[in-house]
């Protein structure tokens, strides 16, 4: 067994963790990312890439079934773990690693699980579109069709079978695209689990190629609200210093997402390390120099300017944030540079105290969500991802009110 255990030992030096963030548990997710970096592990981009499925927070019903579906897509050896408070992150990951090493357990897991990939018409029909690694056909609409067809086939084999149905799924139908040609129409949901994606958000897209023809946004809520044990949850009764820290953490987290989506993983890593340093208690002045350097290299990069050219996030933000000195920066690049500037000014405390208060988060977040269909229409996925990251949607306040659907 020497070879097998050596292999397992090596493999667990670099575990890939798929993180499912429940709205409201942003702080836990950030702690997870920091801990992954410390251990030399990495975040998984899709279920196929993951060894560990880590749920941050208490998922609601829909997120829970999305989670079950993701779990069925992990290739194995696989470990499922959940973490509720940020202080448990390190011990949870440690336990996950021990479980990954347990060969007997994975043997029995492999024997008991189905060899076939979960079909889009099993009982979790409502959420199969939840997973990022979903197959093309698994959309709500098509799923319903597949179910009906299947029933029909059982009862009546004479039904019209002109159309081939690989895997029991009808083929995509065509439709005129933006150039007036006919192109396949795919119903593809983005979210709720994608790298650098707002927690719990699902954008149901109709795609032609990689161009979004129409989109609808919704947020899958948490089962409970996080207990306010950290910086992100709850806003009352905190010191000015805490507020400044929170502002820097949020801004650098948002910047890390946009930079990662722009494909600049190293700048994203720098933003993330600044965020983690502040979250772990480093003095704000201590990260100010790093923030300056990052802001400088982001501002100077002509490739970034070129690749983000012309991508805008509409006027909702400018209207909502007029008081925050950000008006006019409506492009994604402008937002990014604005965040970094704000973060470095906040770190140096050049601003008046009240400036980093959030302005009516709920109304702003709602208006951002309602803007998504309009903003995404006609964009390709890469642009859409940048736009959504630049909106910096906070999903938690929206789901914590009774009416969570938009």
């Amino acid at each position, binding site marked *: 067994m020497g070879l097998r255990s050596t292999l397992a030992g090596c*493999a667990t030096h670099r575990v890939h963790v798929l993180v499912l963030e429940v709205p409201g548990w942003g702080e836990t997710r950030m702690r997870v990312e920091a801990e992954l970096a410390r251990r030399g592990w990495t975040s998984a981009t899709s279920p*196929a890439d993951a060894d560990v499925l880590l749920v941050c927070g208490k998922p609601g019903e829909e997120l829970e079934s999305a989670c079950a579906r993701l779990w069925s897509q992990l*290739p194995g050896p696989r470990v499922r773990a959940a973490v509720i408070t940020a202080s448990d992150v390190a011990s949870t990951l440690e336990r996950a690693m021990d479980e990954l090493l347990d060969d007997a357990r994975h043997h029995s897991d492999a024997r008991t699980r189905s060899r076939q990939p979960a079909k889009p018409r099993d009982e979790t029909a409502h959420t199969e579109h939840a997973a990022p*690694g979903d197959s093309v*056909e698994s959309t709500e609409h098509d799923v319903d069709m597949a179910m009906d067809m299947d029933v029909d086939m059982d009862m009546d084999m004479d039904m019209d079978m002109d159309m081939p149905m690989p895997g029991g799924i009808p083929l995509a139908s065509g439709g005129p695209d933006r150039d007036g040609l006919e192109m396949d129409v795919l119903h593809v949901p983005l979210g709720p689990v*994608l790298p650098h994606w707002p927690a719990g958000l699902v954008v149901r897209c109709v795609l032609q190629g990689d161009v979004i023809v129409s989109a609808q946004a919704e947020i899958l809520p948490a089962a409970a609200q996080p207990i306010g044990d950290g910086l992100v949850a709850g806003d009352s009764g905190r010191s000015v210093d805490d507020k400044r820290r929170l502002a820097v953490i949020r801004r650098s987290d948002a910047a890390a997402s946009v930079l990662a989506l722009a494909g600049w993983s190293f700048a994203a*890593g720098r933003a993330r390390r600044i965020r983690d340093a502040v979250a772990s208690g480093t003095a704000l002045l201590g990260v100010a120099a790093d923030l300056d350097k990052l802001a400088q290299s982001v501002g100077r990069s002509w490739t970034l300017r070129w690749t983000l050219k012309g991508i805008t996030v509409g006027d909702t933000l400018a209207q909502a944030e007029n008081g925050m000195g950000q008006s006019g920066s409506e492009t994604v690049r402008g937002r990014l540079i604005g965040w970094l500037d704000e973060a470095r000014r906040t770190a140096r405390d050049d601003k008046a105290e009240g400036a980093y208060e959030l302005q009516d988060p709920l109304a702003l977040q709602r208006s951002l969500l309602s803007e998504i269909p309009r903003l995404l229409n006609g964009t390709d996925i*890469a642009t859409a991802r940048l736009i959504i990251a630049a909106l910096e949607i906070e999903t938690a306040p929206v789901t914590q009110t009774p009416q969570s659907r938009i």
Partner: protein
Amino acid sequence: MIDIIEVNPVWALFAPVALGVLALAGAALNGILVSRAERRSFRSGAAIPVFEIARLMRQRRRTTVAADVLLWRIGCAGLVVVAVLKTAVIPVGPWVLADIPVGVVWFNTMDVLVWALVWLIGWGANSAHSLVGGYRFLAQAVSYELPLMFALVTPAVAAHSLRVSDVVAAQQELWFVIWMPIAFVVFCMSVVAFSNWGPFATAASGDIAGGILTEVSGVDRLLILAGRYALLTTGAAFAVVLFFGGGAGPLLPSWLWTLVKTLLLLAAFVALRHRMPAVRPERLAEVAWIIVLPAVLLQTLAVSIVVAVRG
């Protein structure tokens, strides 16, 4: 003057091993750069490829609903095969496996195969994100392929031959990189692009959940990732042959010079990933067709005129 000779075909067994070692060195350098940025130790970074190989060997393969399994697996395994086939015409010092009269074309044929293979990986999984990854690669390939072809042709024009050994011999007095720098830069960018690496890795990027890699796990994923590094390595080795005089150099034996130059160029390719953001295919198309293609054509024209005048 190096006389390039064909070696016994038995050495073909050794070529994949050498390619594997060089590719692993590239992957280790990438790991070192990643872990240095994360402030972790040098050693843990250099070992990342080993850990990843162990992890993927231990992981199960998976399939998806109604996947086109045959084509999918062909795509996954194909990248490594293409890279190994490329080594056949790349001389290491004085030795080459096959000094065919159309060696330069052979290299180009192999990288055109990458179009099909990456598309098959994207197509086979029957998954929207994979498919988008496939689209992105084809869009990118339309931009890099023509400039790449002219960049390959330019040294061949100067050498009056498509035979790789003639191209090396023609650089006896002056390395081609010195008087055809545009062709060299375009060739290098194209190598990075067909290896789906760094700024040109949009087909496998995180914004589409890994794109062509979304649904791939276990040994299939290992083959794709290894194929990427192998393509990068053979690309660097061929650039050495085309532009840096192959094994030419003082003191060291010529085979060692080939390896040293290849490793240096490979390191530059790997490091490029950490320097700049992704170049989106639609932005690349504009630049590739309006600026790069005319520039490399002018380069070919200039070289042709020089060759014609000198007779």
